[in-house]
């Protein structure tokens, strides 16, 4: 066999004897095996990490038409906003109807820059304005997890937007006004736990997309960060979650917050309202206790803002 003869030649020309050669072969085989095992391990760790991030990022909430028992990530859930109705697209790994043909670079570009593989711009209903601050590594873990799911051949439904919000050509201008591509460091100079919480709240779970009021063109009003919004998705009021004692959650303890994130419970024994339940269930409840505590630490460290949505 050719390979063997080549190895023999190497062996002959090298100072190692036959025992050495056998050892070298064994070592090579072992290294190859360990390499495979390590990459399998890395792969399964990446999937696990991706599953948690996928849950915390709430991907399935918009990309699945749960109301009509639609298949996971096949798109179609409506997001009713003051600008019109958005329908999240199919992001299953189907090569034609989903994102199965996307490269790692395509995926990162979509989340980081809000740009599709064909160069068109996404509406900010897709919260790349938040995801932009995720690390490449976390984005790719999410991609790996999505690609491990079932591909679904279902066409995405186009958005139904009111004029002038339906003008996709205007999106670069909107982005210029309201979007700053990341990743930028969050909660700089704060303790590690708060910074981890900032990453989860701001980049991954994109809490600000609902809990922060928007201006006329749909950009977030950062001066009112997490201070609640009177026109959230589905026309719901979204509460102020800054630590203001009167209008926010200033009287909540850290574990009041973690009970909400892990079980959907409010301090009074009730459960959270409909949209937040979607966020908690198979969402923030999948985060580790440390991550939930980090979110609590971050929220409690925010400047309190008096605002009743």
């Amino acid at each position, binding site marked *: 066999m050719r390979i063997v003869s080549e190895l023999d030649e190497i062996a002959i020309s090298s100072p190692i004897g036959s025992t050495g050669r056998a050892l070298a072969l064994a070592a090579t085989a072992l290294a190859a095996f360990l390499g495979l095992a390590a990459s399998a391990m890395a792969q399964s760790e990446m999937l696990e990490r991706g599953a948690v991030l996928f849950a915390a990022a709430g991907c399935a909430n918009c990309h699945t038409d749960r109301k009509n028992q639609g298949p996971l990530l096949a798109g179609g859930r409506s997001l009713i906003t003051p600008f019109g109705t958005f329908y999240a697209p199919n992001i299953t790994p189907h090569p034609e109807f989903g994102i199965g043909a996307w490269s790692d670079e395509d995926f990162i570009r979509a989340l980081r820059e809000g740009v599709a593989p064909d160069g068109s711009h996404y509406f900010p209903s897709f919260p790349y304005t938040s995801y932009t601050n995720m690390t490449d590594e976390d984005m790719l873990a999410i991609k790996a997890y999505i690609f491990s799911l079932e591909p679904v051949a279902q066409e995405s439904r186009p958005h139904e937007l009111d004029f002038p919000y339906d003008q996709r050509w205007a999106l670069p201008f909107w982005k210029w006004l309201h979007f700053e591509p990341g990743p930028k460091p969050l909660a700089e100079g704060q303790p590690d736990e708060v910074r981890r919480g900032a990453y989860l709240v701001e980049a991954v779970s994109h809490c600000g997309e609902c809990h922060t009021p928007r201006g006329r063109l749909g950009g977030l009003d950062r001066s009112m960060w997490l201070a609640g919004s009177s026109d959230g998705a589905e026309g719901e009021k979204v509460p102020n979650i800054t630590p203001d004692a009167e209008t926010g959650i200033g009287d909540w303890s850290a*574990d009041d917050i973690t009970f909400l994130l892990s079980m959907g419970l409010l301090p009074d024994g009730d459960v959270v309202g409909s949209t937040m339940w979607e966020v908690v269930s198979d969402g923030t409840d999948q985060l580790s206790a440390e991550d939930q505590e980090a979110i609590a630490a971050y929220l409690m460290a925010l400047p309190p803002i008096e605002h009743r949505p």
Partner: protein
Amino acid sequence: MGVTKHLAAVVLAAAVAAGPASLATAADGEAVQAVKARQDLMKSIGGNVKGLREMLQGKNTDTAADAQRRAEEIAESARQIAVLFEPEYHISNVGDIETTAKPELWTDYEDFTSKATALEEASGELALAAQTEDMNAIKTAFGDMSKTCGGCHQAYRVKKD
């Protein structure tokens, strides 16, 4: 009528659990009584959930035995849910009393009652966990039970502001 008798028993049980403040009066129609009774029932469950949660947070002096009692009360309440939401007590039959039940509750009635059964089972599990006095087991069972509350409210309760 069997159902009416059953309702009367449940209304009474719920009223006893919730205390005399919200007793439905005899003058109320049956559907209104059912609405009041189910609202009292939910308040009673909420009170027990709050007590359990405060125990887990170390905010009250409840013992594992208290947790078991609360879990059993919740299981008992859960058994009454289906009766109080029977089709004849549909929101369209209750006059102008305020209710946060969604119409879907009755169009998907089977799913609704299966969710009530899930609460009954999960609170039963919590009662068993409480018997072990293992706080971690209690917390896990409590979390599982709370999720049955959230899942059902998400589907069948109008969101409060």
